[in-house]
């Protein structure tokens, strides 16, 4: 210790050690921006088609959905919308849990629950889009 320097006092709530070089948060941040921009077009387009165009929501029934999913274009549109919305929303909730969950066990439990939910909905939705049978009885 040099003569005229006092050591910095210990902190009550020290920052946890940085875990090596890791660009996870960078990519996560970038993903939110890019998926957000794409979702603006996908979701607004979806809402316009479903609720406003040709009679809007009144015409939606089993046949309408079956007709749309016969085309690979709408399959890709809906798949992209599902994946991006789930990952965008899931990642947003992850940051909120990181912010507001006060103890580590609550935090990891909530994030685990979130992960399970996102994976379940994404897989179920993907399965339905690809295995949809218009002739189901």
């Amino acid at each position, binding site marked *: 210790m040099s003569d005229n320097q006092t050591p*910095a*006092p210990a*902190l*009550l*709530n*020290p*920052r*946890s050690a*940085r*875990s090596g*070089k*890791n*660009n*996870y*948060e*960078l990519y*996560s*941040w*970038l993903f939110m921006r890019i998926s957000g921009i794409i979702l603006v077009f996908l979701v607004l387009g979806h809402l316009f088609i479903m609720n406003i165009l040709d009679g809007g929501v009144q015409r939606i029934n089993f046949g309408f959905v079956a007709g749309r999913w016969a085309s690979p274009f709408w399959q890709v549109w809906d798949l992209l919308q599902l994946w991006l919305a789930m990952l965008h929303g899931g990642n947003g909730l992850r*940051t909120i849990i990181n*912010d*507001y969950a*006060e103890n580590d066990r609550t935090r990891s439990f909530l994030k685990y629950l979130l992960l399970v939910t996102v994976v379940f909905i994404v897989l179920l939705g993907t399965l339905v889009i690809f295995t949809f049978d218009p002739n189901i009885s």
Partner: protein
Amino acid sequence: MRKSKTAVVNTQSPATDSDLSIPQSFTVTVSVRRFNPDVDQETYLQDFEVEMYATDRVLDALHKIKWEQDGSLSFRRSCGHGICGSDAMRINGLNRLACKTLMKDLDVTKPIIIEAIKGLPLEKDLIVDMEPFFAAYREVLPFLMPSGAEPERERIQSQEDRARFDDSTKCILCAACTTSCPVFWTDNQYFGPQAIVGAHRFIFDSRDSGAASRLEVLNSKEGVWRCRTTFNCTDACPRGIQITQAIAEVKQALIRGKI
């Protein structure tokens, strides 16, 4: 007392022009959030009535309370002119320097609520423990890290290169920005706007070559990516630093460096 003498002088001087009005004093209620760790379990608001002029600062009101009404009131101040950064506090819910907030800019018909800045450990009345804030600043290596042999004269820099980081040199480490940040409030782990501004000042300095080390610190879990661009910091800065923009520039530097 000095203020009322001034008023007396003004009354005696002949007012040749009727438009030259004599400054009028008024009574304002100052509601201070008090806390004495030796006695109190919780903080509480205590009202004080002080006579003020429109040109007085909130700091003058605190001085009047401390010197004339309650000597136990504790707050930090040093220069009193917006440069030392000692007297950041929450005035009517907004982080401001008490020495740069004038009575004329506040609604004096209602009590002025004065509280300690939020998110740092409260020590007494308006005094918080600034150490976590300074620790975050130290982590971004806020000093010049030149490379190569030491030059025989000054390190020359063009005016354009100097202008690149001019805004972030204005920081006075008052903590108004960091303690206005809702992300910092959550768990105090986020480095906070001030540390990022402090890093920005050197990252964009053409004479410095430590940018990679600073960017690595700010690329961590508690670094710039926790910023949600709520602009609270920019609104709070008594030096008018465009903090959110500085944070965005650091994000850009990281993205350009990694991709």
